């Protein structure tokens, strides 16, 4: 376990780390985000409507799009989800939680050959299918999905 790294980060504090990220140009200021924000997709209340807003209706599953998520969530409030696209020329990845009130949880754009890998922690209100949608430079969409169970717990073993 890398204790040193953990202590350094604790010492730096969350605000400091965020400021550093902004300064390094890793995060964009809000004004830029606002202009690229797909309001229709993020405000849609059903997954099919999200896919439509993204232009991804009718896309098919691809083995080259990996979605890593637990079968059973340890804590529904912070479910770790990782998406890795091995599809050439992936330019964006979106993550949906079908049963959430607003299914579209995150969308990432990759510019100038950035490696299309993302890792997020999502809140799941209940057991749901989690979907990843990848878009390629030629405008095609691919999906991957997995059911993540949110359970009341107890009674095991």
């Amino acid at each position, binding site marked *: 376990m890398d204790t040193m790294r953990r202590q350094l980060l604790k010492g730096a504090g969350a605000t400091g780390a965020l400021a550093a990220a902004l300064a390094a140009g890793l995060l964009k200021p809000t004004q830029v985000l606002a202009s690229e924000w797909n309001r229709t997709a993020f405000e849609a209340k059903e997954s099919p409507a999200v896919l439509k807003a993204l232009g991804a209706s009718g896309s098919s599953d691809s083995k080259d799009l990996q979605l890593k998520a637990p079968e*059973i969530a*340890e804590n529904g409030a912070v479910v770790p989800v990782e998406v890795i696209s091995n599809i050439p020329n992936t330019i964006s990845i979106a993550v949906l939680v079908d049963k959430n009130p607003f299914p579209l949880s995150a969308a990432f754009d990759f510019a100038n050959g950035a490696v299309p890998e993302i890792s997020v922690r999502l809140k799941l209100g209940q*057991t749901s299918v989690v979907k990843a949608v990848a878009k390629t430079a030629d405008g095609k969409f691919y999906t991957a999905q997995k059911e993540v169970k949110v*359970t*009341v717990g107890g009674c095991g073993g």
Partner: protein
Amino acid sequence: MNRREFLQVLAAASAAGMALDSPRALAAQGGEALYDLPRFGNVHLLHFTDCHAQLLPIHFREPSVNIGVGGATGKAPHLVGEHLLKAFGIAPRSLEAHAFTYLDFEQAARTYGTVGGFAHLTTLVKRLRASRPGALLLDGGDTWQGSATALWSKGQDMVDACRLLGVDMMAPHWEFTLGHERVKEIVEGDFKGRIEFLAQNVKTTDFNDPVFAPYALREMNGVSVAVIGQAFPYTPVANPRYMVPDWTFGIQEEEMQKVVDEVRAKGARVVVVLSHNGMDVDLKLASRVRGIDAILGGHTHDGVPQPVVVANPGGRTLVTNAGSNGKFLGVLDFDVREGRITDFRYRLLPVFSNLLPPDAAMAALVDKWRAPHLPKLGEKLAVTEAMLYRRGNFNGSWDQLILDAIMDVKGADIAFSPGFRWGTTLLPGQAITFEHLMDQTAITYPYATLTEMSGEQIKTILEDVGDNLFNPDPYYQQGGDMVRVGGMTYACDPAARIGHRIQDMRLNGKLMEADRKYKVAGWAPVAEGAQGEPIWEVVARWLRDRRTVSARRLNNPRLIGIQGNPGMA
């Protein structure tokens, strides 16, 4: 008189209440020859699992209900009674039939005597080690929990016993309910340089750093052997999260593949996984991960006489499960020639206490830990008129007793008791001691509770636990049994989808209402901050008031669509 007639005479004598000569009955079954296992090959693995801190010999009744659904229907481990005997070619009424099934349990238990006990297990381990130089002893976990003395000593009695027994490596589950600090203290203290505590699937929640060693490599008779540890993947879900706040678990199938590839690259010729996944999860894992020769499994407490051979893209993997409560010792021998496994032998040996003299040093250690507590442990709370056991998918007479007691004491309409698979068996006429009660209840979150729940909440809980047991995809199962239910009745369709399994919920014959509130008693809450009297105090009080406990009427759900399932007696 042939063997069968001999046993019938014994059974009749037993029924008539006559004292039985257990050594003679055992001798008629071949006696100690059971343990004369000639050495085979050059790689030897001895495996026990889920002993649940049972240091003394006990009885343990195997289930009469262990239903498999979907692809698991009618296959090991979902075979009970005669179905199991037939599948594995075990003679009815034999010593092994008693070890592996519930059939004629009371008579057979009186005839053949108790099973397990660390002093007897030690003798067996020593004997096998003598014939198998270099053999590794693997403990599948659920070792530090399950008895009064383990609870009161924070697992120290078991830690000391495992060191004396000569355990080489272990994988964990209930160990974590002692809290992460205590686990670390033992692993970095008592275990250091002696017992490898292995878990490839436990990482820190922040940076995903490994918490324990994922595997150990050993040279055995010129062969490089890797043992990979797999902790129970759903520890923070099935047990309190707050006990392991900084660690994340999960099956971690891809990580498992990486670890297998890594040990192969380091030259391992035999790769085994010491697993606490549960047998259904192990069977699926074996079908998807390449390069594992055997998964020595536990958690689901299945006493499976022979391995299941699973094909996968890399070859074949043996999957075993070695029962519980110190009742069995698995012996796996591989013959490795020119770097390749050419053949194997496997036996799951029942540990019959009357066939194995106790090891003196282990017996002394067990006595040392029990001595200060003897007056408390030995308190006779009541005498049971009927057999008390726990194991089974839906209920057991021990659980029914707990449900009856807690509903009575708490004045509840309904009671829930967790579907634990540990807990020993008492025969009719036996006194229930405080120690026996602790064998069913000794956990670090024992609080008895009384809560108001709506009919809808009750349905949600039953559906949720039912799905943990009967989800057709093993990766979504947690390996416990169904929550035991007192007061209300219901029907269950195991093959249905979540939300549709639980039907016809009734209280006093009347259909329950979604919006109505009901008083529900329970114990073992996993939420942080839960409070209440320990369940053993509640049940002990109830037992002392009675002195004699009559046969409990088991509240089992009406089952739908499982006629003819070989997982059903």
